C-alpha cells in the first residue's frame, strides 16, 4: 500500500517518524508523504525523518497556545486546528493524492493537540479527497488519570465516526518494568511501527517477485473497510542462513517432512501473533474480518502452513472473512506474521477508559460549578467586614 501520513501532536509525530525509520531500515516504501502538525514548537523539532517543510506549527497566534502546546486541552486543540485549517490544507496540497492508496492520521488520544486537532484534520482531508482515511490512535494508560481518559474517550468517538478504520494502540498493554520514560515510549513506538508498517507495506513488491499468493493492497483495504476499531498482532522468527543452514540441510534429506515442519512453524507463528500482545487487547472472536501477512523470504513461506494458519484464524476469529497473503522479502533473515483483526467490538480497555472518562467529566463539572463561589468565600472574611483596596 502507498500512504500519505499525518502525525498530529507529540505522540502522533513520533509515531510517523518511527514508521519512516522502520521502513527505511527494512527497505520498504510505505509512507510516500509525511506531514506532522503540532501546537508545540519544541515537539515539532524532535522527529528525525520528516523534512523541515513538512512540519506545521498551528495555533502560534492563539492566545492560549502561542507555540507552546495546549496543555492537554482538547477543545483548544480542535479550535486551533479549525483556525489554521487553511495553512494545513496548503501543506497538504502538495500531496499527489492519486499516487497514494490511503491517508493515515496518527495521534495520541490522551493529550490535547492530537485528540482535539486530528478529527478536524480528518474532516478536511475527507472534504478534499475520496481516498480512505485510517486512524492510528494511542490510548492513554489508566495511571495517566482522568483528564487523558476523558480526552481519549471523546476523541475516540470522533475518530471512529470519521475514519474508515481506527487502529488502536493501548499504552497500558505495552508497559514493561524498569524503563525510563524515554525507553518506554521508544520501545512502544518501535513495536507499533513494526506492526503497522509490516502490515500496510505489503502489496508493494516488485512485479517480478509477485507470485499468486502475494498480498495485494486492495485486500488489505477491503479488510479495513469494516470501519470500527482494529487491533494488530505480530510474531516473527529468525531464520537460519539460507544456504548452509539447517533448513537447506533438511531440504536435501526429506522434502515432505520438511514441508510439514515448515507448515507447523507458519501456523505456530500466526497463533503466536494473535495470542501475544495485540496492539489493543480484544476478544479475537469479536473481529469482523481478519487478514494475515507473511513477510519473509518466499522459500520460507509454506503454502500448506499458510492455509492451515488461515483456517485456524477463521475459527479463532469466528469469521469466514480471513485473507492471507505474502509479502515476499527475498534474502530477509526473518519471517514475520502480522495479523489484522478488523472491527473488534470487545475491547475491555476501551470500556475502562470510557468509565474513567465519565467519572472525570462529572468531577470536572462539579468543580466548574462551585469554583467562583469557593474563591469568593476564601478571599472574603466571615462577616464580609473587610473592604478591597481598589
Amino acid at each position, binding site marked *: 500500500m502507498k500512504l500519505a501520513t499525518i502525525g498530529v501532536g507529540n505522540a502522533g509525530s513520533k509515531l510517523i517518524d518511527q514508521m519512516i525509520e522502520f521502513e527505511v531500515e527494512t527497505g520498504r516504501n510505505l509512507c510516500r508523504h509525511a506531514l506532522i502538525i503540532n*501546537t508545540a514548537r519544541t515537539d515539532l523539532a524532535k522527529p528525525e525523518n520528516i523534512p523541515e517543510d513538512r512540519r506545521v506549527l498551528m495555533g502560534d497566534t492563539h492566545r492560549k497556545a502561542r507555540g507552546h502546546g495546549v496543555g*492537554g486541552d482538547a477543545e483548544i486543540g480542535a479550535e486551533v486546528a479549525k483556525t489554521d485549517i487553511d495553512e494545513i490544507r496548503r501543506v497538504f496540497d502538495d500531496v499527489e493524492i492519486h499516487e497514494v492508496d490511503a491517508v493515515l492520521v496518527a495521534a495520541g488520544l490522551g493529550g490535547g493537540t492530537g485528540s482535539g486537532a486530528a*478529527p478536524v484534520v480528518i474532516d478536511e482531508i475527507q472534504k478534499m479527497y475520496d481516498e480512505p482515511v485510517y486512524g492510528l490512535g494511542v490510548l492513554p494508560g489508566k495511571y495517566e488519570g482522568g*483528564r487523558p481518559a476523558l480526552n481519549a474517550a471523546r*476523541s475516540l*468517538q470522533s475518530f471512529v465516526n470519521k475514519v474508515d478504520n481506527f487502529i488502536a494502540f493501548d499504552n497500558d498493554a505495552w508497559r514493561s518494568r524498569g524503563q525510563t520514560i524515554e525507553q518506554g515510549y521508544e520501545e512502544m513506538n518501535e513495536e507499533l511501527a513494526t506492526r503497522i508498517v509490516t502490515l500496510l507495506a505489503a502489496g508493494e513488491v516488485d512485479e517480478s517477485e509477485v507470485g499468486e499468493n502475494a498480498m495485494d493492497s486492495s485486500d488489505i483495504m477491503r479488510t479495513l473497510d469494516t470501519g470500527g*476499531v482494529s487491533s494488530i498482532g505480530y510474531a516473527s522468527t529468525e531464520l537460519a542462513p539460507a544456504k548452509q543452514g539447517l533448513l537447506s540441510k533438511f531440504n536435501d534429506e526429506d522434502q515432505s517432512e520438511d514441508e510439514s515442519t515448515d507448515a507447523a512453524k507458519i501456523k505456530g507463528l500466526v497463533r503466536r501473533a494473535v495470542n501475544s500482545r495485540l496492539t489493543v487487547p480484544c476478544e479475537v472472536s469479536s473481529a469482523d474480518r481478519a487478514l494475515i501477512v507473511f513477510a519473509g523470504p518466499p522459500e520460507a513461506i509454506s503454502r500448506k502452513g499458510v492455509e492451515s494458519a488461515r483456517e485456524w484464524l477463521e475459527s479463532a476469529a469466528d469469521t469466514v472473512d480471513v485473507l492471507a497473503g505474502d509479502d515476499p522479502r527475498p534474502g530477509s533473515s526473518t519471517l514475520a506474521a502480522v495479523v489484522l483483526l478488523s472491527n473488534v467490538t470487545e475491547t475491555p480497555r476501551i470500556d475502562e477508559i470510557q468509565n474513567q472518562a465519565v467519572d472525570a467529566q462529572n*468531577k470536572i463539572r462539579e468543580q466548574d460549578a462551585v469554583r467562583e463561589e469557593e474563591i469568593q468565600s476564601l478571599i472574603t472574611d466571615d462577616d464580609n467586614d473587610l473592604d478591597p483596596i*481598589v
Partner: protein
Amino acid sequence: MKLALVGVGDAGTRIVDRFVSREQATGRSITTGNILVFNTDDRVFEDTRTIPEERRVLLGDTHSAVKRRPDSADVSASAEGKGGDADRVHTGTHADTIDSYGVGGDPDVGATVAEADLPEIRRALDQIDETEVAATMLVAGLGGGTGSGVGSVLLEELNAIYETPVYVLGALPSTTEPDRRALTAARGIRTLVPLADATFLVDNEAWRHGTDSVAARHNNINEAIVTRLLALFGAGERDPEAISEMRVDSADLSRTLEVGGVATIGYATHELDRDDNDLFARLLQLLGLSNDTDDGGVDAATIKRLIRQALESKLTLPCAVTSADRVLLILSGPPDTISRKGFETGRYLLEEETTTVEVLAGDEPVSGATEITATVVLSNVTDIPRIDEIQRQAVSMHSLSTTDDHDTAGGSDSDLGDDEREDEVDPDRVLTDDTAGGEDDGDVDENDGSEVDNTNKHNAADSSVEAFDGETDHSFDFEAERDE
C-alpha cells in the same frame, strides 16, 4: 515559561532581585531582562544586585502623604561602615516593625500614590516587552502598604494593557508582625486574587524559624520561593534543551493556573549518587536481575516517593491538598533516571490525594544533573487555615480602627454585601443547569440506537462523553458554557 517580573515594595524588590541572580546562576532564561521594581521608599534599592537603575522606580516622590527618608538615615543604617555590600544590605532593611517612610504601611495611601503616578508607572512599564513573555508576575509582600496598595493599582494597569496572563506572588505576614500588616494582607488578598489570573502565596509564618533574625528569616524564605519559582517557570527554559518525551510546556502551566484563585507549590529533591547507582545497576544486569531497577539506578519506588514528598512537603502556603482544583507535576533530572513506572504511579497518586482529575505532568531532562526534583503546583486551593486566621486578625484590628474610619468601611461593606448575595445564587443555578444538561446529554436511547444500526461503532461510542466533531459545533457549546 518566559516571564516578566514586576516587584513592588521591599519584599517584591528583594524577591525579584534574587530570582534574577539565581536565574543567571542556573543558566535558565526566563525573564530575559523583563524586570521592573517599584517602591515608595528607595532604601532597599541599594541592596539589589541585578536590577539596573532605570528599572528601579521610586513612586510618590512629590506626594504629600509619602515620607522621604532623609539622607542621614542611610548613614545611620546599622553596619554601613563595617564592610562589604552584602553584609550591610541584608540586615539593614528587614524589620518586623512598620517604619514611617514611604507610605508608612498604609495601602490606601499606596493606592492613591500609584493612581497619581500612573503616567510614570506607564512609562516604566514600557521597558517590558510583553511579546517576549508568556506571562507577567507581580511580586509583593501583601502586608505592605506599598506591596498591597501600589500593587493593586499596578495589577489593574497590567491587566488592562497585557493580553497574556498576569499572576501575583504574594508573601503573607508572620505572627511576629503588627496586626496592621495582617489587615493589609487580608484586604490585599481580597483585592488581588480576583484581579490576578492566579495568585501564588507564601506564608512567612509557616516558613519562619523561631530564633532567626528577621533578615535571615526573609532571606531563607526568599531563597525557598525562588528555588520553587525557578523549578516551575524555568522548566524547559534551559540551554541547550534536552529532548523530552513528555515535556512541560508553558501551556501546561497556564492551563493549570487558568482557573484563578490561590496557588501553592510543593517541592522535593532526591540526591543522586551516580557512581554507586551505575555500579549497582551493572551488577544487577550481570546477574540478570536488572528488571526491577532502571538503568540509571533510580527505581520506580524512589520516583513515586519523591512525588509524594513534594506533595507532603511544606507548601509555600500550607493548605488542604484535597481542595486543589488543578495540579501540575514537573519532574526534573537526568533523562536516564526518571522511571516511567514511578512517574506514572506518582502522577496517579497526585490525582488520588488531591481528588482532582485535572493533573498535568511532564518531565524536564537535565543531562548531568546531580539530583532529581519534583515540583508540584496546586492550583486554586480553597481550604487554607492561614488565610482564615489572617482574616480574623484583620477583622479584630479593623473593628478597632473603624470607629475612626466610618465612611470607607461602612459604605463599601453594604455594596459588597449585595454583590456577595448575588454570587451565592449564581453558582447554584449553574450547578442545577449543568447537571440537568449532563443527564440529557447522556442519552441512553441514542446509545442503544447506534448499537442497533451501526454495531461497528458501538465500541467507540459512549454517549455520556461528547465527541470532538469537526462539523457540528456541539462539543464546543460545552466549553462555551463553562467559560461563561
